């Protein structure tokens, strides 16, 4: 009996090794280049498109998006439910998810994370997204010691109550600001947590040499088995995009973090050897000119409509080497609520002149256009300047540093602003992100980002009502309501939508991945968890 037992014990491990395991991780190391230094990896603070995706690979939140899509799915939450009145969300957490320091994640950690974001001391840019939680205002202004609307029901159950229903709430739970952080590590690192991040994500921080590189290494205990697919990512910073391209062509770099430099775009796309390394996709982006609706003569809707008809969008797109599609409306094609049938204002300079004359300006007028001074924005602004000159509007151009333009917009001093370099890429794939921060009455205040100072009280009410449609199954109705809202806004023409930029991600031949991860609309430039080394 014993000898047979021994034999079985000997054979068993051999047999195990023959059983195929989960999809093989490719291992290996990849190099990504960026021009600017990584500013911070603290999820409560990081808010530029460069560190956004890196933070997503070090931290996780209750909700997330299926890779390569804009489909919202539960992530650290195993499941969730919404109350009948749409104001209370109950999340059941996944068990056994560990922080990089080994401790298990519990519901209390999420309460701590959200309160940290709402705490003014943290200086989090995302505090505004969670102002709708009951008790958030009282907490932020110091009147309460905690946020009453966030309840830890038990170790693995979290309940959040809002003051009023918000259909985009689950999207805000997928934002980096809501990615969970361990209290003990935050307190230990203090203000340096952004450079010593500890999260639950697929990657851990291995090394950060200021001004040179950030190195991430695989988290062996990640709760999704089989992810990430590479062992290490090296982010090299301070690299000019033109030089980065040369290095990729020499095989030293795997992914161009800043994209293909405009100067070499056409050559790359026309050369079959390099063209096949470029993935093309859509972005949640619109480039537009804001028209200050409070300044004469721009306050006359006929003037604004005439300006919309005067711009030759195809020529502008040619100037940027065809990297976009013309925009006739506010929302980009990927967004729910995009109106496929809407034609917008046609390119009709003669008609524009007639409309201007009707409004009382047969000889045009003078105005000022502000633009960011980084390439290609001055060129686009000059093209717009020439188009408006053709219908008699003399535009003085001010190409200034980004901070100056933002200031002028927020103060209401700028008649026209070209949004390039500061354009709207959605925080989350929901139409209300294109409404509240930049077109609502609430944001038409000093310091706001609504540079058109557009305020339509009726539409505001409609938007609030649309946001209250939170129950599953009401998505189609909500999309239709927002379609109507944005169509009404275009009737008022507070903007001139110019184009929707497409995404062009260039990578080396040795990396690959599932379809769409190189043009993932949420993760820019790529979904780091999903990229693998293929050669």
């Amino acid at each position, binding site marked *: 009996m014993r000898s047979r037992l021994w034999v079985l014990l000997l054979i068993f491990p051999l047999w195990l090794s023959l059983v195929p395991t989960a999809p093989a991780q490719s291992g290996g190391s990849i190099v990504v280049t960026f021009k600017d230094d990584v500013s911070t990896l603290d999820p409560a603070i990081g808010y530029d498109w460069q560190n956004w995706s890196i933070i997503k690979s070090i931290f996780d939140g209750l909700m997330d998006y299926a890779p390569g899509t804009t489909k919202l799915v539960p992530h650290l939450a195993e499941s969730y439910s919404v109350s009948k009145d749409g104001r209370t969300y109950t999340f059941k957490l996944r068990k056994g998810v560990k922080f990089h320091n080994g401790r298990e994640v519990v519901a209390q950690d999420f309460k701590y994370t959200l309160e940290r974001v709402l705490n003014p001391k943290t200086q989090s840019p995302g505090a505004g997204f969670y102002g709708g939680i009951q008790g958030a205002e009282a907490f932020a202004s110091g009147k309460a010691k905690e946020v009453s609307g966030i309840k830890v029901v038990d170790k693995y159950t979290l309940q959040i109550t809002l003051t009023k229903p918000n259909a985009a709430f689950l999207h805000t739970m997928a934002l980096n600001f809501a990615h969970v952080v361990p209290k003990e590590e935050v307190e230990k690192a203090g203000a340096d947590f952004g450079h010593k991040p500890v999260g639950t994500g697929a990657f851990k921080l291995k090394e950060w040499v200021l001004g040179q590189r950030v190195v991430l290494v695989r988290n062996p205990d990640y709760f999704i088995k089989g992810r990430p697919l590479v062992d290490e990512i090296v982010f090299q910073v301070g690299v000019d995009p033109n030089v980065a391209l040369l290095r990729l062509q020499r095989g030293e770099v795997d992914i161009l973090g800043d994209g293909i430099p405009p*100067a070499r775009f056409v050559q790359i796309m026309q050369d079959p050897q390099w063209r096949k390394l470029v993935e093309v996709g859509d972005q949640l982006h619109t480039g537009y000119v804001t028209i200050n609706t409070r300044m004469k003569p721009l306050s006359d809707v006929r003037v604004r409509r005439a300006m919309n008809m005067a711009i030759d969008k195809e020529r502008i797109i*040619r100037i*940027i080497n065809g990297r976009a599609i013309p925009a006739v409306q506010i929302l980009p094609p990927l967004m729910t609520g995009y109106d496929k049938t809407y034609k917008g204002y046609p390119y009709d300079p003669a008609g524009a002149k007639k409309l201007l004359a009707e409004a009382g300006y047969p000889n045009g007028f003078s105005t000022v256009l502000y633009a960011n001074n980084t390439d290609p924005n001055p060129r686009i602004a000059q093209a717009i300047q020439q188009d408006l000159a053709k219908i008699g509007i003399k535009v003085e*151009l*001010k*190409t*200034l*540093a980004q901070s*100056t333009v933002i200031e002028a917009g927020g103060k209401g001093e700028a008649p026209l602003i070209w949004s390039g370099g500061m354009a709207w890429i959605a925080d989350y794939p929901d139409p209300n992100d294109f409404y509240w921060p930049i077109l609502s009455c609430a944001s038409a205040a000093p310091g706001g980002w609504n540079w058109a100072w557009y305020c339509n009280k009726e539409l505001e009410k409609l938007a609030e009502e649309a946001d209250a449609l939170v129950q599953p199954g009401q998505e189609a109705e909500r999309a239709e309501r927002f379609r109507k809202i944005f169509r009404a806004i275009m009737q008022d023409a507070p903007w001139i939508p110019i184009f929707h930029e497409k995404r062009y991600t260039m990578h080396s031949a040795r990396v690959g991945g599932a379809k769409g991860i190189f043009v993932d609309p949420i993760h820019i430039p790529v979904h780091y968890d999903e990229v693998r080394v293929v050669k």
Partner: protein
Amino acid sequence: MGGLAVVVAVVVVALFAPYLAPFDPAAQFPDGLTPDGRPLPPGSRFLLGTDLLGRDLLSRMIYGARISLLVGVVANGAALAIGTGLGVLAGYFRGWIGILFMRFTDLMMAFPALILAIALAAILRPSLWIVALVICLVNWVWVARVIYSQTLSLSQKEFVEAARAVGASTSRVLLRHIFPHLWSTMLVWGTLGISTTVLFEASLSFLGVGVRPPTPSWGGIINESQSYFLDAPWLVAFPGVAILLTSLAFNLLGEGLRDAFDPRQVRNL
């Protein structure tokens, strides 16, 4: 005298730009770009090629001569005058004046000119005069330091002490004995300075301080086309050569003038 000819040519071009330029420098031609949006190399219609918006480079360069002359010669010249004057005074009198002056130059050198430029651009109406002002405020320091060190050395030489012993007034000593030896330094800064000032103007205009688009300037054309150097080198090469020729021409002119009035040659007669 070739120097004089080129200088005169540049001035003429700048003055008569509207009559000489084949096209409107701000006109963006739809056929000035290839179908995929790239600029055209030099050809039969656009003699020097087109820029990134399909505008004629030759016309832009002709109009750009105005800015470059104003900035490179006038503004730089003013900075040169200020720097030389202050440097000579500090080097000759030394003492408290010298120390005060030297620390003042340290202050002005450490002062972040770019931030000053951005602040001015926002408060005042951007114009070429602000560019000239910033250039004067910033550029005089370098020549001042060099002139200072040379004046220090010169004012202790025998012939200066001899002149003072004889009772020559300060201004006479300065003019007849010190200045002639500074002329070569002034020449260097007056001519090489044209190049650096023209390129510096481009940075200032980039920040919104100086000329506003679509007004062309040589430095501005280079600035906006630098990344495209490998694919459209004519956009950097032609303005660069123009800057080079202009500063060289002023150099030849200046050397010619210096040789004509050289005190040593006068003494040899």
